[in-house]
């Protein structure tokens, strides 16, 4: 088995249009949650979201390039370009040319769906743009990343709701570890700030109407976010030979399914997914020094995830934090974003805080880092994702 290095990072997030500015905001607990601003807002009750308000596609694409790109594809391409530049390899090299592109998404081209179908049902137009289908397909972002970067390896979308980005990286990890690929681009993207999607989330009755406070007694639910994150995974020796900077090592992946309830996670399988990742890495729970939680800020997630963490670590869990107080919940992108943040946490040896955790719920039995970023040595970390439908995915990363 090959070792797997993370050598490139790219992000478009509500707190910044690249990975460094995103990480800085998360580290400082600077939340991007604010007043929602979307088309047809009068139809939506939810007042808040974590939107990528500073993003102007004209800064990245020509007018002709923008036309076939849904916002979720734009985020993925911009993040992938940054990750490629960041990893420092010749973009024309064989390893890049043959690299796979695996992009997780929960909903695909949701803006295209919403705007196109609004024309049909809301404005009674029988004409919608000829690129509607290629813009909205779930695999659009993967295709656009492969075309934009010239990646000829296998490209596809992974969709597992809120675990999509984590599954995408887990798949890329398997490709490198097994020797199939030397290099892979993997991540997630979601642009879900549409009227239809927000109304649909309101119907689930889990959205907060003020902000996201994971693991805090005054929790009020989740806040939707948007964004994209792409990582370059690379065969360790290949990275070392070319003198690449290695942010972290991917050591293990644990994934399973509850095969139970649609929206209530099963603590037994959530716990097992974490244990599987630790076993896959050949480690013991005591060697894991930090957990980046799924941490959505709902009553259900707080209770189930903390109980599972306590069980895996036999009552002595390492520090745990949720970065969703800063970035909201970007659905299919969030797992990739959190893998990126966990890699940065390992690289800088800093654990990011749980923002907005103003009344730490001590009954949960975890140290959720409420006071601010913590400088502390640790050699391995988990990044958790637990999706609707009972789809669990956990990455284990180590200090490089």
């Amino acid at each position, binding site marked *: 088995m090959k070792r797997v290095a993370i050598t490139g990072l790219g992000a478009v997030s509500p707190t910044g249009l690249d990975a460094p500015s995103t990480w800085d905001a998360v580290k400082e607990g600077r939340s991007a949650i604010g007043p929602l601003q979307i088309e047809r807002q009068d139809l939506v009750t939810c007042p808040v979201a974590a939107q990528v308000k500073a993003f102007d596609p004209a800064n990245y694409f020509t007018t002709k390039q923008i036309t076939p790109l849904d916002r979720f594809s734009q985020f993925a391409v911009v993040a992938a370009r940054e990750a490629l530049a960041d990893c420092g390899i010749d973009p024309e090299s064989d390893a890049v040319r043959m690299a796979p592109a695996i992009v997780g998404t929960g909903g695909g081209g949701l803006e295209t769906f919403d705007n196109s179908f609004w024309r049909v049902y809301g404005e009674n137009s029988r004409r919608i743009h000829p690129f509607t289908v290629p813009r909205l397909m779930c695999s659009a972002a993967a295709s656009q990343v492969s075309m934009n970067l010239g990646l000829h390896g296998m490209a596809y979308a992974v969709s597992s709701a809120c675990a999509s980005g984590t599954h995408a990286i887990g798949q890329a990890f398997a490709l490198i570890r097994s020797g199939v690929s030397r290099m892979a681009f993997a991540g997630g993207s979601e642009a879900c700030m549409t009227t239809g999607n927000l109304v649909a989330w309101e*119907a*689930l*009755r*889990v*959205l*907060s*109407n003020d902000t996201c406070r994971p693991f805090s007694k005054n*929790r*009020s*639910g989740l806040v939707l976010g948007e964004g994209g994150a792409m990582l370059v995974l690379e065969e360790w020796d290949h990275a070392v030979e070319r003198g690449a900077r290695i942010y972290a090592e991917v050591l293990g992946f644990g994934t399973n399914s509850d095969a139970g*309830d*649609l*929206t*209530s996670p099963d603590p037994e399988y959530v716990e097992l997914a974490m244990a599987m990742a630790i076993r896959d890495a050949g480690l013991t729970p005591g060697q894991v020094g930090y957990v980046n939680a799924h941490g959505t*800020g*709902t*009553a*259900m997630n707080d209770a189930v995830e903390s109980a599972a963490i306590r069980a895996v670590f036999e009552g002595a869990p390492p520090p745990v934090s949720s970065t969703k107080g800063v970035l909201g919940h970007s659905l299919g992108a969030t797992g990739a974003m959190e893998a990126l943040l966990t890699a940065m946490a390992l690289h800088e040896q800093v654990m990011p805080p749980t923002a907005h955790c103003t009344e730490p719920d001590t009954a949960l039995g975890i140290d959720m880092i409420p006071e601010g970023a913590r400088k502390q040595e640790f050699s391995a970390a988990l990044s958790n994702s637990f999706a609707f439908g009972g789809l669990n995915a956990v990455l284990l990363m180590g200090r490089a």
Partner: protein
Amino acid sequence: MSTLDRVREIVATQLGRDAAEFTADTNLIEAGFESLDVIETVFAVEEEFDIDINFNANESAAQDLITVGDIVKAVEEELAKKATK
């Protein structure tokens, strides 16, 4: 039909049972409600009565809908608000 009868019909439909089995005191969980049944039922009564019920699964108020009668109470409160508008 009274509000209680209409709510009993909705709860019975949700569980695939006969409305006659339900009273105002019927405990929803004991009657077989699982995770999504409450929000589906809230949606169904909102449609039936053309009202909006303020219900968030994260707040302790969510625990207030324990019995069939609790749903009736929530509906009647919203109907009263609507009447005064």
